[in-house]
């Protein structure tokens, strides 16, 4: 049973190592300031990645995440000009995200089309939707935006746990509960492990698939709401390519893309590691931003190879 936690352990080790590199190299790296910013800046992508974790655990993939973040922001900014309260427009858009995700899930299961390609169409539709609403960055002027960005918990030592980070940690906890302590979560793992066996065992495949993608829609729409409130604007190109960062976060978090194996909690660290690398590159100062992408690529490589080795021994042991 401890095998289940090995990938998570590896992820946390890498996170601590990268953090240690930063702490040794830079004087102010080991402050609550840096930690608070790390949690705040990456909150929206980690929220979206939690939803992606469920999809990947079930053996699927959701490429519409980045476009959803952009679309939610743009529509929120548009509704703001019509006098909507951000919480009201946010709730509406989260409902839209759930509906859109459920529709994707239904098409995937009913039409037997690969998730990759349906969510790719979803990516185009939502990004196209962004451009229909607005071509420019639109500010959200409602005073609630300031309330949201000002409100925080002090961490001591000048660091602050912002409302973005608190929302992220709350929905992470909810995700962990859903994944590990509900029947739905068990069904997700079952489908990811072996779809045919799950169906034979009486797992409701259609209901669960629709639920998984609806959940992913919920999380990515919530990520979009947090991003819009965090930046105080809606921008039609926001979240471009973020689906890949979310997928990378899930993989770095120790979830296998073949489905059935992984922990929702790991995704938190998968997202934080990527944020940490960007922070390190920023601290270093002379390295240019593209080094961050190369480092993330190298880390992905190392991690996946390590995972293969760990899982390889895991598989052979299970076979015996």
């Amino acid at each position: 049973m401890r095998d289940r936690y090995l990938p998570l352990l590896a992820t946390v080790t890498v996170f601590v190592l990268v953090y240690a590199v930063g702490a040794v190299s830079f004087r102010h790296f080991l402050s609550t300031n840096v930690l608070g910013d790390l949690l705040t800046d990456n909150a929206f992508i980690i929220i979206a990645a939690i939803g992606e974790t469920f999809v990947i655990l079930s053996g699927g993939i959701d490429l519409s995440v980045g476009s959803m973040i952009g679309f939610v922001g743009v529509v929120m900014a548009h509704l703001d000009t019509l006098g909507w309260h951000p919480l009201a427009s946010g709730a509406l858009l989260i409902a839209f995200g759930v509906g859109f995700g459920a529709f994707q899930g239904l098409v995937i299961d009913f039409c037997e089309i690969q998730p990759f390609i349906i969510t790719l169409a979803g990516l185009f539709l939502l990004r196209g939707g962004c451009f229909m609403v607005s071509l420019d960055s639109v500010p959200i002027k409602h005073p609630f935006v300031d309330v949201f960005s000002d409100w925080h918990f002090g961490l001591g030592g000048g660091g602050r746990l912002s409302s973005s980070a608190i929302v992220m940690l709350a929905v992470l906890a909810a995700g962990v509960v859903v994944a590990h302590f509900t029947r739905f979560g068990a069904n997700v793992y079952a489908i990811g492990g072996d779809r045919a066996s799950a169906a034979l065992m009486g797992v409701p495949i259609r209901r669960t698939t629709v639920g998984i993608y609806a959940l992913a829609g919920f999380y990515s729409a919530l990520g979009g709401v947090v991003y819009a409130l965090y930046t105080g604007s809606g921008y039609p190109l926001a979240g471009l390519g973020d689906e890949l960062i979310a997928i990378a976060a899930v993989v770095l978090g120790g979830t296998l893309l073949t489905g059935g194996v992984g922990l929702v909690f790991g995704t938190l660290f998968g997202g934080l590691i990527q944020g940490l690398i960007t922070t390190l590159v920023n601290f270093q100062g002379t390295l240019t931003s593209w080094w961050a992408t190369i480092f993330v690529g190298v880390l992905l490589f190392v991690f996946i190879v390590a995972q293969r080795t760990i899982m390889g021994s895991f598989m052979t042991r299970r076979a015996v």
Partner: protein
Amino acid sequence: MDRADNPQAIAVGRWSLGEITGRSWFWPVTALALIFLVDAVVSPGFFSIRIVQGRLFGSLIDVLYRGTPTALVALGMAVVIGAKGIDLSVGAVVAIVGAVMTNLIHRDMSPPLILALTLGTGVLCGMWNGFLVAILDIQPIIATLILMVAGRGVALLIDEGLIVTFRSDFFSAISTGEFLTVPSRILVCAGAFLALWVVLRRTALGLFIESVGANSAAADLAGINARLVKIAAYTLSGLCSGLAGVLICGDIRGSDSNNAGLFIELDAILAVVIGGGSLAGGRFFLGLTIVGVLVIQGLTTSILVSGLPAQYNMIVKGAVVLIVLLLQSRRLRQSVVGVFLRRSS
């Protein structure tokens, strides 16, 4: 797909409805015909082709011209998807190849040598992906995600973060020139298509790739070196992306590592799927992939000629793709037909 496994086939002689709609070429070709039909109504001059300054000119030529880079990438993608893989790194390969090409041009090498080295870079990128997938046994989406994430960083490293421009008659001629009134890049693409067709369909390689895609373990037991075949598929994809990179960079006469080939992987995968390729592997269609590219490019050009604002492009593309996918789904067709049959009886 034959009649036996298509229970909805309403047998009315040889050309029954079910049989025709079950053919792999039916839906992509219908989609393309519909798009052209709409074009013919919206813009009467759509099909007129004339010669301006010794070069063919017209909307139809424009569709072909603009579609060539995507077509090249999509051909390679079709092969990889046929081997039950996927190549997300093609856009990054385009960027790397462009950066290498620009860098070499500034070193005053002879153009054919530059071309060879540039395409060689594409081949190397493809072999790297093949190595990850076939030897290390990593999932294709993730294996190629690594190069996709890191590749643009590498390209920016070569370009030192700048957009580097160049002047080269040789590469401009390949990309934007014409030969016997036909734009040369269309000829390049046609040549690549023919070469791929000969290599894949006139030898056993295509069959090997499809058998590995259908069932890698079974193919291995049947004596096919599955690993080698997979590496070959990714290498072909790298070569095709490299050639696309040469065309894209020759077009703008420079290497723009941030934007060169951005999202081309999505268009290429869509083209393959619209062309009837299954992401589950086991079959690929070179000709229908080109039809898929023409559907996507035709759609983009149609939106432009119809006078709709360019921002409608993506949503229309997404909607059309969704409709084509739904039409291709046999299960949906059957249940819709089933509802109608029940009503009429």
